[in-house]
């Protein structure tokens, strides 16, 4: 398969400062992932296993100790975050509280210097896509958790990013909403033919949304493969224990 994203050997370490002492700890250690165009890769792992750091590293938000990121054969390791054409959706949305719903969704559109009239059309279209017709002038602080995450998704895909990074976008929601939004998310990603990496700690969510699945444990990517295969043939006893297939 022709891989459009190739990240190899990604290593990021944290510096912990406690008083005068500081020690360094590997958040992700020599992680390599690759992705075909239009594919959704799920990353599953316990909390603290480095999933979010991996996404942030690919987005360019973390300083790499080692490793390279390339897109369509071009090395983009040193390209600054804002010039990569990616988008990242945060666990808690990170909507801009001082802007309306429409202004949040249009944030990336304004950067591309899209004319105002076209921006309005696109915002309407996106809000329909995520099921929030007519929410343009609402304040984001008035929205429920589920609505906020829908706005965050609309904002992330507005400028048609080359790669969408989703960092546990549903985990702050209650179970019923999570299942419904998970199916919505899958259909939106397929419909818009978006290449995406989806991070979660919930197995059923990972199953619903992803084409392929990677398992992360203690900063390392320990197994990658088609969803069914990972669930049926865990690569190690530790993975099996994590998946509850022992």
């Amino acid at each position, binding site marked *: 398969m022709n891989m459009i994203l190739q990240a190899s050997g990604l290593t990021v370490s944290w*510096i912990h*400062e406690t008083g005068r002492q500081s020690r360094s700890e590997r958040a992700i250690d020599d992680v390599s992932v690759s992705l075909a165009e239009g594919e959704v890769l799920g990353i599953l792992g316990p909390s603290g296993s480095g999933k979010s750091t991996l996404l*942030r590293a690919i*987005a360019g*938000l973390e*300083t790499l100790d080692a490793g390279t990121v390339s897109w369509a054969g071009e090395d983009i390791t040193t390209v600054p*975050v*804002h*010039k990569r*054409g*990616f*988008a*990242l959706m*945060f666990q808690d949305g*990170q909507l*801009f509280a*001082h802007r309306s719903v429409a202004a949040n969704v249009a*944030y*990336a559109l304004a*950067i*591309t210097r899209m004319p105002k009239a076209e921006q309005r059309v696109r915002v309407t279209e996106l809000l329909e896509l995520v099921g929030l017709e007519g929410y343009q002038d609402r304040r984001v602080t008035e929205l429920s958790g589920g609505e906020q995450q829908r706005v965050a998704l609309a*904002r*992330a895909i507005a*400028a048609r990013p080359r790669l969408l*990074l989703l960092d546990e976008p549903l985990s702050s929601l209650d179970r019923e909403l999570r299942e419904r939004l998970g199916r919505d998310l899958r259909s939106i990603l397929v419909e818009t033919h978006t290449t995406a990496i989806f991070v979660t700690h919930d197995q059923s969510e990972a199953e619903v949304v992803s084409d392929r699945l990677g398992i992360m444990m203690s900063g390392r990517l320990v197994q990658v493969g088609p969803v069914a295969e990972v669930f049926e043939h865990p690569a190690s006893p530790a993975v099996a224990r994590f998946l509850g297939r022992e």
Partner: protein
Amino acid sequence: MIRARRSPGTVIAMVLGIGVPAAFLAVFFLWPVSAMIGRGFFADGVFDLGGFVEVLSRPRILRIAALTIGQAAVASVICVLLGVPIAHVLYRLRFRGKAVARALVILPFVLPTVVVGVAFRTLFRDGGMLGWLGLDGTLGAIMAALVFFNIAVVVRTVGTAWEGLDPRQEDAARVLGASPTRVFFSVTLPRLGPSLAAAASIVFLFCSTAFGVVLVLGGTKFGTIETEIYLLTTQFLDLRAASVLSVMQLVIVVALLLVVGRTRGGTQRRISATQVARRARRADLPAIVVTALVAAALALPIVALVERSLRTSTGYGLQNFASLAGTGSRNALAVPAWVALGNSLTIAVQATVIALIIGLAASLALSRTPRTPTVRRALAIFDGALLLPLGVSAVTVGFGFLITLNQPPFDLRSSPVLVPIAQALVALPLVVRTMLPVLKSIDPRLRESAAVLGASSWRVLATVDLAIVARPAVAASGFAFAVALGEFGATSFLSRPDRPTLPVVIYRLIGLPGGDNFGMAIAASVVLAAVTVAVIALVERARVGTVGAF
């Protein structure tokens, strides 16, 4: 109806906590200030607003008023423009020596005003390090000194707010394609808005009421309303005009305090501060350069002052410091400068004790949440009244003392208690602002559980409130001591010729140049600065970082 029984200690605490500070403020603040202000409204015992019309149509007064507002506005803008990049570097980036850098930035703020005035004179005068700029005696020198003082306010106020902002908001914008400039203007700046407004209005307040530094640098040509009140009362004995100006200043100050109160309300959800600091990126370079340049500029007047203090007619030596044992050329002083330092220290200790007792009583009362809305409203007014001495001209207070406390029942005019009382008044807002937040943060259930365990009301007060407030009380004492040591506005009116404080002596020496006097003024400034810095360093070691943050 059965009413919940209040513990008797609460009632006693409320009565003492409000009564003592309220009586103190009434006698030593409201009465003198209203007496002073009354002179503007009454001519020969008859209500008459003619004085306002007459005084406010004098060209010189109008010029000084415009100058006060203009220079405060420009200085505030410069402080914000320079302070924001420094706040970014000192509160958002991770680097070695950050704690030291933060402590150094607040140093100018705590230096006595007269010392800063003398330092800038030394820097800009002919033969000084920046003498070639030709700024001596100009508005530029005054502005430079005002900025020097107040950058710390912006850095601390904006920095602490910035530290608490979630950096992932910026990350979200960056990933969506926003350049560093766009991220700053579209995401960071709007969230910093409230703290920027608060910092700017506090700086404006300090600049528009600046006294010592303007008096030393501006002479009679430039000034603020505050220095003009001083000149009108001491040089021209025009009390009416002085009083009109006091009223004008009071209006400006109250309006500003209202603005500050409003902006302080809007607090954002804070996150833990330790995870925020990050390594520097290339985009941080401009902010780092600004920080380095400003740090160098802030050090310059101090370096110039110390260098000049060591210069003698024959090279370098300690001659200037040795001359502090004398009374200066042409007998400029009534007592040797060392004696004045002794006076300063004694008076500052007295002022600290007064400010601490009154401030602690007031803070204890203000930290309780009363059940009835009426009492709650009364407490809110009391809270605001405690802030007032921050803005009301120290000169007005000083002169008000002279015209009210000179007859029974308070014939204190020749008493040595006036100076420490005036200084305590100036330090009081700072003391309350340091202790009150700590007392307010005590969970009431802590007191309840102590009471359930059998502690009497007084024991609860001693083992819960006082035990927790001990550390901030040490910090508050340090600030109060530093403020009292450098206080010049009120002290210049009240100190008796035979018992001057060191700032008064420095001002006297700088006004009578020639012979050893200038050298002595410089050496005395260095000594005063050194004592202040030592006190503040001790406070900083106690790790209560609140100087300059309001």
